[in-house]
């Protein structure tokens, strides 16, 4: 079997590229030059008689399996799975989280089956025929909507991330945990959500002048409830019924959930059954004892809804190692709960020098933005970092800056710069830098 019948991309142009910063970072244009070189390597040289038989592989010489009602990943890609944490063990098996394996995914869409989960009382299996959405409280006309009726409404689609307020909590611990990138940062996922703008339904119920907040509530075993400003409900909140083109998964709130672009994930009430318009917040458990930000002086910030600007290098990362010195495409994700990503910088020398990464279009507000930068690793120890800035000019903080603000025990809203230390063995370690 000749290697030259399977031509590999060549990146001669990259090796000659100008450095963009220290530690082997190359300019963004190096990627384009590399792409041109791919065609140049495609030369077939096998001319021997019946050479095609020598080149045939088993899956070419027998019929493949037939059709399936719902496609499954390759048996060779089975390891692409969520990592599960049960917070209270077997006594409450449905209280915990599963983490999206960010280090094993590319692009910006999270497959529905790999979307992170945070459940407080397990996954509700709701019969849509016995479920409806009601809107009441400070409205002119309290209304109820069956799923069938809601499905007839004009719908909008948006690419949006949902991030748990506790995402990356492991990096708030005193010692940097040695787990995969996904196990640290994977309480975030990005989907195309399709549904009915909540403002449209509130137009129909009418909104009383005294209304300032809403309470949204799910029909799960936690009967999860959260308060949120009416302004958000009228601005861009969505009653989502579809995720990445298919009906919501039960883990994402089937038959419907609230999606609040950029706000902490816990507020996007799954299995949504009720919306009540009120004068003020109800101070539910999950906006007092949980999902509040305890500061070093003992006071707690409440109702800190938008998720901060943040980024992480997903490849390479712990869980996605290097195979020896040479060319790599550094790739990662950036997002902001407030706006579009404006710029992502990458460092390969622990933050001494930075280069601006290329952003994959389209760059959408409150969605995943994929960034990348070519890198030639010389085999020496290195520290990779990324730092995002959104269109408002907010810049992702350094870790010590974040800890100064929040202290050592706050676990929510962690968005500091992540540093990955590259060892000479090509493995990556989580380090606080």
């Amino acid at each position, binding site marked *: 079997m000749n290697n030259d019948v399977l031509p590999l991309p060549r990146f001669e142009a990259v090796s000659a590229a100008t450095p963009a910063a220290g530690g082997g970072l190359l300019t963004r244009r190096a990627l384009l030059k590399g792409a041109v070189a791919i065609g140049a390597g495609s030369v077939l040289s096998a001319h021997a008689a019946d050479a095609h038989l020598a080149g045939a592989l088993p899956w070419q010489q027998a019929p493949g399996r037939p059709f399936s009602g719902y496609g499954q990943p390759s048996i060779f890609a089975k390891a692409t799975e969520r990592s599960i944490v049960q917070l*209270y*063990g077997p*006594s*409450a098996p449905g209280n915990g989280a599963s983490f999206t394996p960010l280090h094993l995914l590319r692009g910006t869409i999270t497959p529905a089956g790999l979307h992170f989960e945070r459940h*407080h*009382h397990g996954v509700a299996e709701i019969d849509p025929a016995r479920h409806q959405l*009601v*809107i*009441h409280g400070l409205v002119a*006309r*309290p*209304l*109820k*909507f069956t799923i069938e*009726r*809601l499905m*007839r*409404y*004009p719908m909008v689609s948006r690419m949006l991330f949902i991030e748990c307020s506790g995402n990356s909590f492991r990096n708030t611990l005193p010692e940097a945990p040695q787990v995969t990138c996904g196990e640290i940062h994977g309480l975030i996922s990005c989907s195309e959500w399709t549904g*009915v*703008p909540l*403002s*449209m*339904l509130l*137009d*129909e*119920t009418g909104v009383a002048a005294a209304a300032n907040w809403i*309470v949204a*509530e799910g029909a799960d*075993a*936690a*009967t*999860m*409830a959260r308060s949120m*400003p009416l302004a958000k409900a009228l601005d861009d909140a969505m009653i989502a019924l579809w995720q990445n083109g298919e009906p919501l998964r039960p883990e994402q709130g089937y038959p419907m959930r609230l999606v609040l672009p950029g706000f902490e994930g816990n507020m996007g009430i799954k299995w949504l*059954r*009720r919306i009540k318009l*009120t004068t*003020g917040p*109800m*101070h*539910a*458990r999950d906006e*007092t*004892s949980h999902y*509040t*930000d*305890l500061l*070093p*002086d*003992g*006071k*707690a*910030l*409440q*109702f*800190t*809804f938008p998720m901060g600007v943040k980024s992480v290098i997903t490849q390479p990362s712990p869980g996605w190692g290097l195979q020896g010195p040479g060319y790599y495409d550094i790739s990662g994700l950036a997002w902001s709960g407030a706006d579009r990503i404006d710029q992502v910088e990458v460092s390969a020398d622990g933050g001494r020098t930075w280069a601006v990464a290329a952003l994959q279009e389209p760059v959408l507000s409150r969605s995943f933005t994929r960034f990348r930068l070519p890198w030639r690793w010389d085999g020496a120890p290195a520290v990779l970092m990324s730092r995002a800035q959104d269109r408002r000019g907010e810049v992702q903080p350094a870790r010590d800056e974040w800890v100064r603000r929040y202290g*050592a*025990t706050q676990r929510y809203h962690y968005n500091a710069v992540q540093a990955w230390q590259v060892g000479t063995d090509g493995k990556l370690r989580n380090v606080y830098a």
Partner: protein
Amino acid sequence: MSTRRRRVLVIALAALLAPAANAGPDLGRPLSDAEIAVIDIDIAPDGDGLPKGKGTVADGIDIYMEKCAACHGARGEGATAPALAGGLGSLDTKAPVKTVGSFWPHATTLFDYIRRAMPYDRPMTLTNDETYALTAYVLWLNDIVGRKEVLNAQSLPKVRMPNRDGFVNGWDAESK
């Protein structure tokens, strides 16, 4: 004007009078007060939403031991589930302990949460009296109410939690 031309005019006028682009098809059906009564379970800090009924610490002990103690500990010290008592004065230290007594700003939240989500293995099965009694017991574990206290819709909102003033509204601060 021909019928046909008149029809065209009517359609054109209808288009002019059509609601804004955001207007929906109005497919919701009226929701009655009776329907709201069985589904609106929110309790506000001022007591709005609290039902009739009552409970005392003594009423709560047996229910707590049967339905709560296995996970939260007999004295609310925590076991597989979080502690419900203790931690007073710890919030500004390096090891804050956030419990009902040390952290929760409103007693009404306790009633609301117990009734909607507890006990973990059989949520939404407690009566209002049982919920008042468990609320009383957990507050008693934290020395917030006395053993003889009767909790009901009038007395519960008056219970002052130790960390009542410990929260800063980040949304209002941001919006100002």
